[in-house]
């Protein structure tokens, strides 16, 4: 019976049905199913499949976005129900956002979704995010990764500023910093002291795994 529920949860994510996902999550708790198993064997399987469909070109951005929405909706029900001491095993925690002055939203969202699909806890701050907000989020979440997106040559400079702000806040040792966005290059990333650069969402996941020494 639990496998049936896991499959339904996964399917709700693949179909991007937030309301279904939320209702199923509630039902699962009523049936006293293990919330952790619902996440791991249901939602995560669904978002992984969604990511694969995107990578193979069958899904476009909209399907990916609503898939991530559905996952989030169910997580909001399941996470608080995790038993104390029972922790969702996450690959790592990343604070991600588009830097101050930049409103390009999609690349960052896509990276966040693929990271979620690969077991990361993702705190997506949104766009036009000042360094100070990144820092608050790192402190609050205890993240070990920061991802900064910039699509304009004028806002790339903010990535450098973010790195020095992390240093000033005494957090630079705690986090690995990844940068990306169309005008950003590996050599620029190196020059500003970032830990890594990735040119698309799939390589961003690989990079994150490598940076925190997660088993692939």
């Amino acid at each position, binding site marked *: 019976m639990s496998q049936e529920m896991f499959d339904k949860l996964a399917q709700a994510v693949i179909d*991007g049905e937030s309301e279904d996902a939320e209702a199923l999550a509630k039902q699962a708790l009523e049936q006293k199913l293990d919330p952790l198993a619902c996440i791991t064997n249901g939602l995560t399987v669904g978002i992984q499949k969604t990511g694969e469909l995107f990578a193979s070109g069958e899904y*476009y*951005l*909209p*399907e990916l*976005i*609503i898939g991530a*929405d559905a996952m989030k909706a169910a997580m909001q029900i399941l996470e608080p129900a995790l038993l104390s001491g029972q922790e969702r095993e996450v690959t790592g925690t990343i604070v991600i956002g588009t830097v*101050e*002055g*930049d*409103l390009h*939203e*999609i690349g960052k*969202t896509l990276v966040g979704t693929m990271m979620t699909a690969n077991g990361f806890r993702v705190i997506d701050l949104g766009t*036009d995010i000042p360094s100070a907000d990144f820092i608050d989020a790192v402190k609050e979440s205890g993240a070990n990764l920061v991802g900064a997106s910039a699509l*304009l*040559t*004028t*806002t790339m400079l903010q990535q450098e500023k973010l790195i020095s702000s992390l240093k000033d806040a005494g957090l630079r040792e705690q986090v690995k910093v990844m940068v990306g966005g169309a*005008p950003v290059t590996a050599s620029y990333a190196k020059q500003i002291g970032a830990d890594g650069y990735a040119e698309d969402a799939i390589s961003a996941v690989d990079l994150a795994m490598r940076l925190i020494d997660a088993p692939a």
Partner: protein
Amino acid sequence: MTSMTGKQRISAAFKKTFSDADPELDRVPAYMFSGACNSQLVGSTIGELMQDGQIFAKGQLAAYERYKPDIMLMMWDLNVDLEAIGNEIRFPDDSMPVITKEILEDKGKLSSLQVPDPKKDGRLPAYLDACIEVKKHVTDSPVSGVIAGPWTIAMGLRGAANLLRDSIKDPEYIHELMEFCIQATINSTQALSEIGVGVGYSEAPASMDLISPKMYREFVFPYHKKIVDHFKEKKIGVGLHVCGNADAILDDLVATGVSNLSVDSGSDLALAVEATRGKAVLIGNVPTELFLAESAEEMRQSIQNCIHVAPNDSGYILATGCEVPAIAPPKKVDWFMDLAEELGAYN
């Protein structure tokens, strides 16, 4: 052959596309999309230039003097319509304007929105005045306005991710929203053509970077066609610019009936040549990042390649794929017109 003016070169490009005539050209017609970066020529911040139409006009005139493009493109800020409709915008000193509030974050507000009046609302009047001012001084080259296209307006009002969600969850809403947005684009286009400025609209988010070809056909194409048809009746030709990779929809873009199509470096110029031949003047597509390169070598190769791929027998204008980055040094913008001059000579 003595040197031609911008107007003569552009008119020749149109004749090559739309008639059997094959007028001679001294060199490939060429221009760049520049606005923000001209703040450097007039010693203002980017923020000042974006908020003051007269500083913008001064910047464009300084750019015209210095670079002598064959079209003087009035590239200001694509948020002008959005702001007039109700979005809130912040103007950083040293970077491009940013939207701080999307008016349709709550989608229900659509019914209460007003189509802006270009002569009254927001920075639209300042934009028109800047165009009038520049047109007064630039007599050798056509002056052309840049208008936010309906999909760009829709995305700006609703937010990018939200609009993509709507495409699956509430497609009817997008159609309603697009009906509203084309009114804004049509009004701005009308106002610009009344002051004798060329008209074209820009659709950064209509490419395959963000949407599927199917989405373009369902949500965008019908509205692009409506705009073009509206102005065809008035014998006004409109242009279209699409950022990013538009390869899969090139035929659709041409089928909207636009008289010129400008493609970004993400699109394949050879495919665009085939799609536009005899139907629309093709414009493009030197990568904008080359305006930040160490040397002019890559730009030289890119321009050479464009000229090679888009032969002189079809109407073609060499241009940047998109806007020159705001912090590109003027010296590197010089490269572009100098190289067009050097490599673009037809003999």
